[in-house]
């Protein structure tokens, strides 16, 4: 479980996050949704400590992150896996080396054990035959999937995904969403997924947080998101015609 408390962040004059609080539960994907530029990525980076919030605290299973010293921070970090919006693969390493990297640096596993683990993870993201390719040789969607494999390779307790399925076709998107859901349930991981894809919301949105103008405006599940009564949320989810006509039918 991750609890965030009053996270506030400004860049210069621009207030991006204005006191966001909330709880992300264990064993399921917690979705962070909101329009482009509302600060979802910044919030995620504040949670993992890549961007220092001006105010606020993050609790990882009751352990405060920002109040801790460097060693505790490192320990918490070593339980994290993160997928970045652009993949963030190491471009001097092959796909296989990228996925193996956390194991190389953070564990004492033998090469065979590491190879096994890497192959299992690559298989889970349906990338069996690209082990030796360089990141520059694979497509954007494949990079995303390699990023996911790298994020889960070291059995994280906390998984963070920034737009795991942007740039993927609908079929692969669903596969990735289900993969994230499955591993969260299977290994009891606290997963936070940033998305603005309504398919993901309706597919795996068991816990959704809607960010609007730097604040946490609404929290709920996919079952009550369509009748939240919050105008800003309705504007967000019923932005396209198909969704609007669906609502009229209901």
């Amino acid at each position, binding site marked *: 479980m991750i609890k965030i408390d009053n996270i506030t962040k400004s860049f210069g004059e621009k207030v991006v996050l204005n006191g966001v609080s909330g709880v992300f539960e264990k064993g399921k994907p917690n979705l962070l949704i909101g329009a482009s530029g509302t600060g979802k990525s910044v919030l995620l*980076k504040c949670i*993992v*400590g*890549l961007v220092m919030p001006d105010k606020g605290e993050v609790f990882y299973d009751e352990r405060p992150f920002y109040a801790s010293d*460097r060693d505790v*921070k*490192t*320990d*918490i*970090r*070593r339980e*994290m896996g*993160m997928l*970045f*919006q*652009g993949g*963030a*693969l*190491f*471009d001097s390493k092959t796909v296989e080396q990228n996925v193996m*990297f*956390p194991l*190389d*640096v*953070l564990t004492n596993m033998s090469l065979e054990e590491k190879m096994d683990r890497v192959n299992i993870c690559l298989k889970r993201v349906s990338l069996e035959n690209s082990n030796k390719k360089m990141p520059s040789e694979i497509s954007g969607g494949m990079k995303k999937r390699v990023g996911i494999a790298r994020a889960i390779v070291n059995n994280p307790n906390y998984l*963070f995904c920034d737009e795991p399925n942007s740039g993927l076709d609908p079929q692969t998107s669903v596969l990735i969403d289900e993969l994230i859901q499955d591993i969260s349930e299977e290994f009891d991981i606290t997963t936070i997924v940033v998305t603005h894809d309504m398919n993901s919301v309706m597919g795996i949105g068991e816990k959704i947080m809607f960010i609007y103008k730097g604040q946490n405006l609404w929290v709920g599940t996919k079952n009550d998101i369509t009748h939240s009564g919050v105008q800003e949320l309705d504007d967000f989810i019923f932005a396209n015609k198909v969704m609007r006509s669906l609502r009229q039918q209901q």
Partner: protein
Amino acid sequence: MITEIGKYFMFLGTMLVRRESFKTYYKLVLEECVSVGIGSVFLVALVSTFMGAVTTVQTAFNMVSDFIPDYVISQVVREMIVLELAPTIIAVIFAGKVGSAMASGLGTMRITEQIDALEVMGINSISYLVLPKIIASLMMYPLLVVVAGVCGMVGGYLAGTLTGIISPNDYVLGLRSSYNEFTVIFALIKSVVFAFLVSSISSYKGYNTQGGALEVGVSSTQAVTSSVIAVLVADYLLAQLLLSK
């Protein structure tokens, strides 16, 4: 400027805490040695050979008096190459080739979030990425300076003897006469200092890139400019400190 220097020292401080295992660094340092050392040896040899040749021709041209024996030419060439041209001019070349590559490499890693990815894994990205570069430079740059010194003197020999400015015997006699080994030690001290300055300043500039591809180019240029200035200032200070009697 002052805050920039402060940040630079904090950057160096962070590099030394919370490091990974020795094994990790061993491999990284070897990789960097290859790119820093082997990657520059051709350019260094080429530049220093020509530097030696030109120095010889120009020194001979300036020694118009018949009272000065020919071997003084190569003696002057030796002193110039060992003391200044090999360590300092090659440092400028080193900044242009290796420093800019370090800065743009780290800058690209920064803007594509690869550095963030390391941090989230709980790895101290500064020591993981920068320490191997600095160690490799400290090991390889003095060797490059030695190569430059040898190539410079060979270049001088070729230019001098092929054009008939100086006879082979006189050239070798000049190289060997009134040799003071402290000049070589001084050159090596200089090269260690310059290697540290170029690699750490370039890494600092690259690591702290903000923005996009355009800013990577800017960092890389700034890395070269700042390293070269630092090298020249350090060159003067070291000369004052170690050579003044």
